């Protein structure tokens, strides 16, 4: 190590020993230390979740839940979470009040009569006929049409 001469470097480093804060800073260290020690002795305030849980336990007498085994506790929590989720989902569903519900914005369905393009005469006595026989050109053909039919039964008076 003889080839290296660190004297200048060490002289420069030794000058750093003089870099110190003012005396006022050191005068306050003891007080600051005592203050921090006192603060460390004060128990931390419980968090909000803990406070909410405690109030729930007190309000609804949930003591039984605390006495459950951990497995049951998780199951209870899962069931409670599902119930809450379902409840929240139910609340978020649209509520129809008269014609001003959420679905009111959608186009109303046409009345049933709109599907009948050629009305057939209705008599007291009628049969069901295939729609193709009645309205061949109808764009939206219903499954059947009501139409008048010739009476097939003959009643004979005695």
């Amino acid at each position, binding site marked *: *190590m003889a080839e*290296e001469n*660190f*004297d*200048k*470097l*060490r*002289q*420069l*480093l*030794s*000058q*750093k*020993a003089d*870099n*110190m*804060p003012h005396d006022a800073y*050191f005068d306050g*260290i*003891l007080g*600051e*230390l005592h203050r*921090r*020690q006192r603060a*460390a002795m004060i128990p931390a305030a419980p968090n909000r979740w803990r406070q909410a849980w405690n109030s729930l336990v007190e309000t609804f007498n949930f003591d039984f839940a605390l006495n459950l085994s951990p497995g049951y506790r998780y199951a209870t929590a899962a069931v409670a979470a599902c119930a809450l989720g379902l409840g929240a989902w139910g609340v978020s569903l649209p509520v129809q009040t008269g014609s001003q519900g959420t679905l009111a914005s959608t186009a109303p369905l046409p009345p049933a009569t709109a599907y009948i393009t050629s009305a057939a005469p209705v008599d007291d006595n009628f049969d069901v006929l295939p729609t193709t026989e009645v309205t061949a050109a109808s764009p939206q053909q219903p499954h059947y049409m009501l139409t008048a039919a010739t009476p097939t039964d003959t009643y004979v008076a005695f």
Partner: protein
Amino acid sequence: MSSPPPRLPPGSNEAEPGAGQTGPPDDELVSRTQAGDPSAFDELVVRHQRRVYKVIFNMTHNHEDTNDLLMETFTRAYQGIHSYKEQAAFYTWLYRIAVNRTLNFLQKRKHDFHNVSMDDEETNLHERHEFIDPSQKSVTEQERLKLLQKKLNESLMKLSEEHRAVVTLFDIENFSHAEIARIVGVSEGTVRSRLHYAHKQLQKLLKNFL
């Protein structure tokens, strides 16, 4: 530049922090603290606070961090005063707490520092470019020394935490190799090796200014 201050022999009373101060010796104050007298520990704090501050500050180069670490060091020392054995000097034990706390802090900060944004990197780069070369003849001697100190601080921060700790304890705080070995918790040979490597690195980084 004059030669560095003479190294005091290991275990020299003058090298001991708090030497020359009036009052009971450290061990007596420790015994009183262990017996439940907190005012005795206050006296130990007042006696050692400046040197402990210097050790921590020369490793962190940040006053706020130093202040926090100083408080933490004394708090830990007070909490663990019952585990202190009189096999080693009290100040060795105290400085060991300070150095270990600081090394842990620096390791954690280095980990966080890796997440520095590119903006910060660019800012630092600009600052480096604006740095005036202390070897220039135009600057006055006082300015040159100031800039040299700044360059020295930058170079120290480029060393690893372990090397910086050894340089701080040896060159700035005048601890002996044996004392540093006890404080840092390594062998004397390791201390010498780290010191030599650190000196070489610093010499290299400051070759234009020394």
